[in-house]
């Protein structure tokens, strides 16, 4: 084991820090579109979008350790996300690199890296949520096209996305072998998008209806009937992407700050032994989440693909979200019922916990694929 970084990696860390000194103002509005545009352009010029993708795919050709350092340094300064297209950069791009044809790579990767496209992901349907493999949106072959009919739901960012990375059924007799992955422009005739307000009242996800949407066979990602293979890899990337510890580190810093400010029995809450234990327990599990992520990165460096083990941190993160929120609301007391930053988080974190598979789905994956218990 070795947790030290090489001199080259330390030098890279210093480079990220000076980039941040130069490009990240001490105060900024993370929702300001002009600022974000400028920020993403600077990231693109530095080559840090798709940083660990191979050079021939237009990426930075960096090691996953360098990418890890990049994300940690960015997060430590609370910089805006690395690129505006989280889904595109975290799993659509890697899936294109692995399974895409040369034409598909040329068509999609440059604009993805330039931040000019935005991807959404079409997995869930009204009748296929946790049981994703039961999906029934049909794609029937008609000449050089597929004709797609059906409905997707909980499609995050469908209302702004340029493309959808989606699963369709090309064969009804085979549960897994009948699933195929296709890439469709969201402005294709026959696509109708209906936003669904989430419980905060914001629009983050949508219903998407497909009526006789024609999709060229050339827009299929991977072979017909091999969509499940594509999606298992994409979901592993999604789960590890969701479960990086950086965001939780910022969360616990804020929670500690809150515990210093809030008073309990005339003293700062942070002096209460129970509060201290709770905060230390959160810190401990977040530290472990970061370390477990490093163990999984080591696996990748040794040539193993991300797989079921990504459910470990996804499950842990879900538990942390729920417990840390309950704790924050407890600290706020009656303030918990008003509007505010913590209260907003208290409503919105549910999306993160459910997205990419609910905690119960992660438990199923661990129990069945790792522990070898009988399948549901």
């Amino acid at each position: 084991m070795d947790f030290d970084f090489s001199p080259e990696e330390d030098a890279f860390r210093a480079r990220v820090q000076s980039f941040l000194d130069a490009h990240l103002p001490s105060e900024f509005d993370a929702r300001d579109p002009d600022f974000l545009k400028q920020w993403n352009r600077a990231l693109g010029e530095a080559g840090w979008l798709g940083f660990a993708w191979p050079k021939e795919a237009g990426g930075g050709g960096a090691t996953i350790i360098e990418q890890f350092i990049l994300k940690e340094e960015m997060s430590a300064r609370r910089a805006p996300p690395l690129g505006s297209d989280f889904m595109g950069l975290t799993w659509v791009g890697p899936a294109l690199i692995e399974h895409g044809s040369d034409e598909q790579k040329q068509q999609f990767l440059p604009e993805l890296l330039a931040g000019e496209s935005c991807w959404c992901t079409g997995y869930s349907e009204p009748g296929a949520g946790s049981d994703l493999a039961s999906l029934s949106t049909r794609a029937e072959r008609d000449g050089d096209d597929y004709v797609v009919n059906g409905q997707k739901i909980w499609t995050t960012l469908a209302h702004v996305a340029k493309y959808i990375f989606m699963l369709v059924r090309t064969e009804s007799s085979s549960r897994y072998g009948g699933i195929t992955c296709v890439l469709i422009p969201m402005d294709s005739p026959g696509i109708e998008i209906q936003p669904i307000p989430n419980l905060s009242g914001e629009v983050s996800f949508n219903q998407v209806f497909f009526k006789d949407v024609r999709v060229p066979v050339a827009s299929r990602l991977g072979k017909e009937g091999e969509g499940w293979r594509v999606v298992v890899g994409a979901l592993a990337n999604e789960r590890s992407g969701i479960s990086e510890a950086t965001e939780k580190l910022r969360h616990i810093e804020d929670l500690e700050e809150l515990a210093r400010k809030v008073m309990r029995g005339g003293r700062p809450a942070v002096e209460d032994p129970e509060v201290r234990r709770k905060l230390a327990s959160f810190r401990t599990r977040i530290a472990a989440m970061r370390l477990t992520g490093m163990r999984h990165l080591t696996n990748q460096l040794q040539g193993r693909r991300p797989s079921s083990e990504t459910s470990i941190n996804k499950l842990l993160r879900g538990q942390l979200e729920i417990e840390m929120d309950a704790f924050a609301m407890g600290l706020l007391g009656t303030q918990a019922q008003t509007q505010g930053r913590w209260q907003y988080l208290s409503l919105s974190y549910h999306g993160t916990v459910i997205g990419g598979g609910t905690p119960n789905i992660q438990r199923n994956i661990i129990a069945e694929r790792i522990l070898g218990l009988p399948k549901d």
Partner: protein
Amino acid sequence: MNFAFSEEQEFLRNEVRKLLDTRCGLPQVRELAASPEGYSLELWGQIGELGWLGLTIPEAYGGGGLGWEELVILLEETGRHLFPSPLISTLLCAEAITRFGNDAQRQRWLPDLAIGSRIGTLAFLEESDHWSADAVGLCARRDGEGLVLDGEKRFVQDIAAADLVVVVFRCDAGELRIAVIESGSDGVSVQSREPIDATKRFGDLTLSGVRVPPDALLEGGGSATQQIQEILQLGALATASEIVGTAEGALALTVQYAKDREQFQQPIGHFQGVKHPLAETYMEIETLKSLVYFAAWALDNGDDGVALATSQAKAYASEVITRAGVTGIQLHGAVGYTLEYDIQLYLKRSKWARPMYGDEIHHYERAATLGGL
């Protein structure tokens, strides 16, 4: 950055596991637990010859000169097998002598500890029952050249078997001291106590006019308070390492039971009410491993974060083993409540492992302070 054990380290794990699988399965563990000594002298001698006992003792004093990364591997396996032996006690005694003893003291004691011809332990806890240097109340009085001890130490692990006892006490104006006394010295008496987990033995130590000669004092480098915290930290890390293996053992046994036991015409492991708690235990063990392995690396490499990492590891380990024990019993159902089924052995081990060298209440508070709260 590389978070994986080396091939040599994996080889060590396989060797340890192979020997314990053949020589110390659960039937043997039960036999040993029922024996007066509580461990096998023969097996003890054998692992001494194999170098397990002296793994971290410097080569110059008859040990293997390896680090805690290797030790964690050994302890994971002894924990998995519920291996009954005075291993951790002897290890802590040897670490104290290695770290704080002078060359003569190391020459005198370490070679015997490395091969197991002498057994060591640490006498620390008192009535105050607190794993902290400030909690030490035992006081020595001066008598000529040496010191004399009168008082008690409690919950001294493996004290009935021990030849050498590292004792922590105060003298003169209350300064802390660490000394090695021989258990056969005049005035030393031991009252064994009945453990819940008969694979882990302990007792109370009464010292009545026990002489501590000057050459028994471990006085090398650093403040005694710091040294005591260091030894307690090693105890916490050793226990957390055993917990990893013990929790894995309990999980493996329960997963197997869930695959074999049928109800409603199917294996109970089919039901989410059974598989989900097992998945949760697995997630917790993996999370714990990350903490324990990092703490071992930090210790071996003099990383500043070692104290925090160790407290995080032991705090979380105490929680994990407590839950793993209970989950194991509950998922076994009524047979889990019998003496016959083995899962109860793991529950009993959790009663030992949770408090030793500090429970989660102790270590989370320590982690909070070390983390700046």
